[in-house]
């Protein structure tokens, strides 16, 4: 079966760059974004004038964030497109870049996510429809309900969920780009202030700011530009979808993850069991348990047991959120999805010093965003 992403001799991540995620500060967004872009250029061994097009994922900075930032790199006249899709803004910017390269429109494209902590304004609050509850569009409430249902239906206790946060804070403590860099014990996670239902504050992602960048090249450009093929990671699939009527109460998010991840795995022509790495949307701890089942790295109902056995740890069967995830690494929105791509790229190259998942060949970056939308990318070592 043909795969559109291979049409231009393949799409490769040639360079990655980051500005560490951090708590809200007075640092201008341009400083955050430029650090990531310059890092990605240096990592790829490319110069700014070689970049033909750029996609900017952001939610809270305002109109035309890209051009304002890019002029400090030199006014090359490249095409600039801003992408907003809530938590998945960066992921969708990356997808746009993939499509542009795959279709042969450009051979060298930048995807950058950059954000500052904003006011969280949502389109859902502007659709002119009142709601019975003013928290109806607040994600923490929705996921607290999902957590309560999960615990009751599985006969699990709050510890099962809290262990996600313990793992991910531990991974983040070894990630120099993470917003939280302290390991947390189960007692600390469970003892932190409660937010909603059974979710405590250390099981919820922080808001913050930061930037992440990836430079994509075609297979043709990879050779023409003499890039280091051994450090280029291949994009094998890009799949996106939005919410459909849920199959049962509370299943909408899980249905969405299952559909998008399944489509990406089909495109990449691998089963979920081949994934060595999975970065996913753990804005709230229960999500990792649910989505690890939905993606298929463990059996339905096995999410908590998969974690308990250490199968989702770095060094386990499939390292889930080796970066620290949204809970530990942070969730500045615009950059988050591209930060996932950067983490998987680093891991597949064998360059994730201090948190390396050895022998990794395949990884998936999965995000969901308000609305709800979902997106999945599958990446592999260039030789996999």
């Amino acid at each position, binding site marked *: 079966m043909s795969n559109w992403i291979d049409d231009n001799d393949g799409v490769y991540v040639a360079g990655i760059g980051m500005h560490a995620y951090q708590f809200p500060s007075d640092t201008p967004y341009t400083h955050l974004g430029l650090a990531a872009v310059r890092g990605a250029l240096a990592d790829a061994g490319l110069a700014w004038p070689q970049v033909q097009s750029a996609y900017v994922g952001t939610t809270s900075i305002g109109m035309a964030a890209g051009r304002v930032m890019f002029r400090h790199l030199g006014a090359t006249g490249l095409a600039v497109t801003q992408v907003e899709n809530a938590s998945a803004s960066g992921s969708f910017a990356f997808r746009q870049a993939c499509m542009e390269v795959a279709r042969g429109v450009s051979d060298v494209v930048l995807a950058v996510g950059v954000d500052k902590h904003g006011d969280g304004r949502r389109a859902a609050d502007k659709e002119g429809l009142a709601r019975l509850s003013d*928290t109806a569009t607040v994600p923490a409430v929705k996921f607290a309900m999902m957590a309560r249902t999960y615990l009751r239906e599985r006969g699990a206790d709050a510890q099962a969920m809290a262990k996600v946060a313990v793992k991910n804070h531990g991974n983040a403590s070894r990630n120099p780009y993470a917003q939280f860099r302290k390991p947390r014990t189960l007692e600390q996670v469970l003892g932190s202030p409660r937010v909603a239902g059974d979710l405590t504050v250390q099981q919820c992602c922080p808001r913050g700011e930061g930037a992440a960048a990836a430079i994509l090249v075609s297979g043709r450009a990879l050779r023409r530009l003499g890039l280091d093929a051994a450090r280029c990671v291949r994009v094998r699939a890009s799949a996106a979808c939005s919410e459909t009527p849920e199959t049962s*109460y509370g299943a909408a998010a899980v249905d969405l993850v299952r559909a998008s991840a399944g489509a990406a795995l089909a495109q990449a022509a691998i089963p979920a069991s081949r994934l060595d790495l999975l970065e996913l949307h753990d804005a709230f701890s229960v999500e990792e348990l649910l989505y690890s089942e939905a993606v298929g790295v463990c059996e339905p109902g096995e999410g908590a047991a998969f974690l308990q056995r250490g199968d989702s740890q770095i060094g386990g069967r499939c390292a889930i959120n080796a970066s620290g995830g949204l809970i530990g690494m942070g969730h500045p929105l615009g950059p988050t999805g591209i930060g996932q791509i950067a983490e998987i790229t680093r891991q597949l190259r064998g360059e994730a010093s201090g948190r390396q998942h050895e022998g990794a060949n395949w990884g998936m970056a999965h995000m969901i965003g308000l609305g709800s939308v979902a997106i999945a990318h599958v990446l592999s070592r260039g030789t996999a």
Partner: protein
Amino acid sequence: MTNELRGLQPQHPTLYQLAPDGASLEFLFAQCAACGKLAFPANVPGCSHCGDPLSNAKKVARPGGGKLLEFVTLHVPLLPGMEVPRIAADILIEDGIIEEGVMAGSDESCLRVGMALCAVAVALPGGETFACRFVPAEGAAR
């Protein structure tokens, strides 16, 4: 109490109105002329079932309430000015229509998943409007 509520306006008049008993609420739906299904609230710009623009939809009032699907206590103010603790609940208010509602009171012990709920009017500070809160149907004043 009932007389006091009759003089107040609904906080969200597109969602509900005071029932004839002067204490409980009626929810306002649009009945799609194309597929016959209900949409909530009545002023939605399209039927989520079939996509009809609902321009010829009939406005339908039904007793406010439903089946409790899930509930959690909110421990911190997630919105400016929000009072906590508060219990948020997912409620099946009609076939295929699930809405988040606010329970009256903050004691979870009287709630269980699957129980029937009734929507009642609760006067808001200021004495001009009432809001929708949910209570267990058993024992609710109707």
